[in-house]
């Protein structure tokens, strides 16, 4: 029970809320196309650093919030985010030991998988959107990962 109490739940929830706001705040068109999926990055961070803080409920809830905000089919982003977080949690000890550069590559792969799942569900539910631009945010997400990691690791005691 003691170990459970030390999990950084507060910073986790607060960072998720701020990331959600970053993700829906309006930006100029050219910038918003390249905007990284902040909430997904935050979920990946907590999945790597402290998977027990939120378990799989945290990615699921964040995905549901994204569904509501984006007007998607309920469960679409929830499924994609749960899947990606599950894979990352499975290997979180391996990923945690990697240097930031390699982590960024892994994050890029995870974001691409996430977008792929969303793209598939978009197609199956009849909301096809085959723009090449939708594959841009994994790249910027991977590039910004060191910054996200640096900022978030200051919000709680190192583990």
């Amino acid at each position, binding site marked *: 029970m003691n170990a459970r109490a030390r999990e950084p739940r507060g910073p986790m929830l607060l960072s998720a809320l701020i990331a959600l706001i970053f993700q*829906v705040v309006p930006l100029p068109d050219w910038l918003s196309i390249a905007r990284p999926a902040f909430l997904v990055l935050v979920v990946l961070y907590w999945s790597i650093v402290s998977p027990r803080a939120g378990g*799989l409920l945290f990615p699921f809830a964040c995905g549901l919030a994204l569904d*509501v*905000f984006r007007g998607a089919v309920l469960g679409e982003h929830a499924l994609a985010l749960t899947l990606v977080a599950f894979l990352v949690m499975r290997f979180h000890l391996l990923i945690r030991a990697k240097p930031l550069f390699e982590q960024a590559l892994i994050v890029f792969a995870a974001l691409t998988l996430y977008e792929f799942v969303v793209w598939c569900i978009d197609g199956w539910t009849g909301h096809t*959107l085959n723009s090449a631009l*939708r594959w841009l945010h994994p790249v910027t997400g991977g590039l910004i990962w060191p910054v996200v990691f640096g900022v978030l690791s200051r919000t709680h005691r190192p583990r």
Partner: protein
Amino acid sequence: MVTFGSGRPVPSRVAATGPRFTFYAALAIVLMFLDQRGNWLEYARYGLSAAAYPVQLAVNSPSAAWRWVRGNFATRERLTAENTALREANKALELRALRTESLEAENAQLRELTAAMPDVAERWIVAEVLAIELTTLRQRVVVNKGAADGVFKGQSVLARGGLIGQVMRAGPWSAEIILISDPEHAVPVQVLRSGLRTIAVGQGNTGVMTLPYLPVNSDIKVDDVLVTSGLGGVFPAGYPVARVIDVGRDPGQPLALVHAEPLAAIDRDREVMLVWFRADHPAAPAAPSTVVPAPPEASP
């Protein structure tokens, strides 16, 4: 990490187990299924959009505050200039209204009606667009009026200049609007000059719509105005939608390549009008059942 030969981590350190993942994945899939088939999740969505509203307001607050500051510290010259411009616009509108009245009277005479029909728009409310970005590559906006103000799904949304979209989802205090420029949106339109009916489809770009279903030899040219045709059961007839900006005719192709520019300032207007229409008016949206062509006569 402690391992015991099997290579598996100690169970207590594992947060993501297969069964748990299966549970959440199944839950997500069930949700998607329920949301997609039937409207069993309408209430859940209604509640969730109520929960989302505070965050939407928080996101909107910086730009709202900025506009409030600018509005309060507007200079005298700017206000005077704005006032003059508005007076000019008002005069122009009055002139047009005069003409409309005489035209309406003439129309009534032609139709041998005793009195001119009232306007098809019964009432409207002005809603403000919240500065929220839903999806980058789709064209949707959120406005600050919802079911509490009587907003309903499928309601037409107008702005200065013409039609801009329809309500896609109405939450308690906010509503999601799909714009006519969304790639998933199509408006049944009519060319004002020739009466030609077709469909205008969005492209995911506020400035351009396409008319993909026109034959090469159809009577359409640049600067033609497209108005809603009233078919389809959503929009009433006669509201301006777009202006044709480009007609490409390739003799080798069966269809013409026509582009049009929406008349309403989709990305610039912060205020939109949600409109209720008279159901018994001739220009009211035709109910889908009346649009269906009559069944072919039984052959003897």
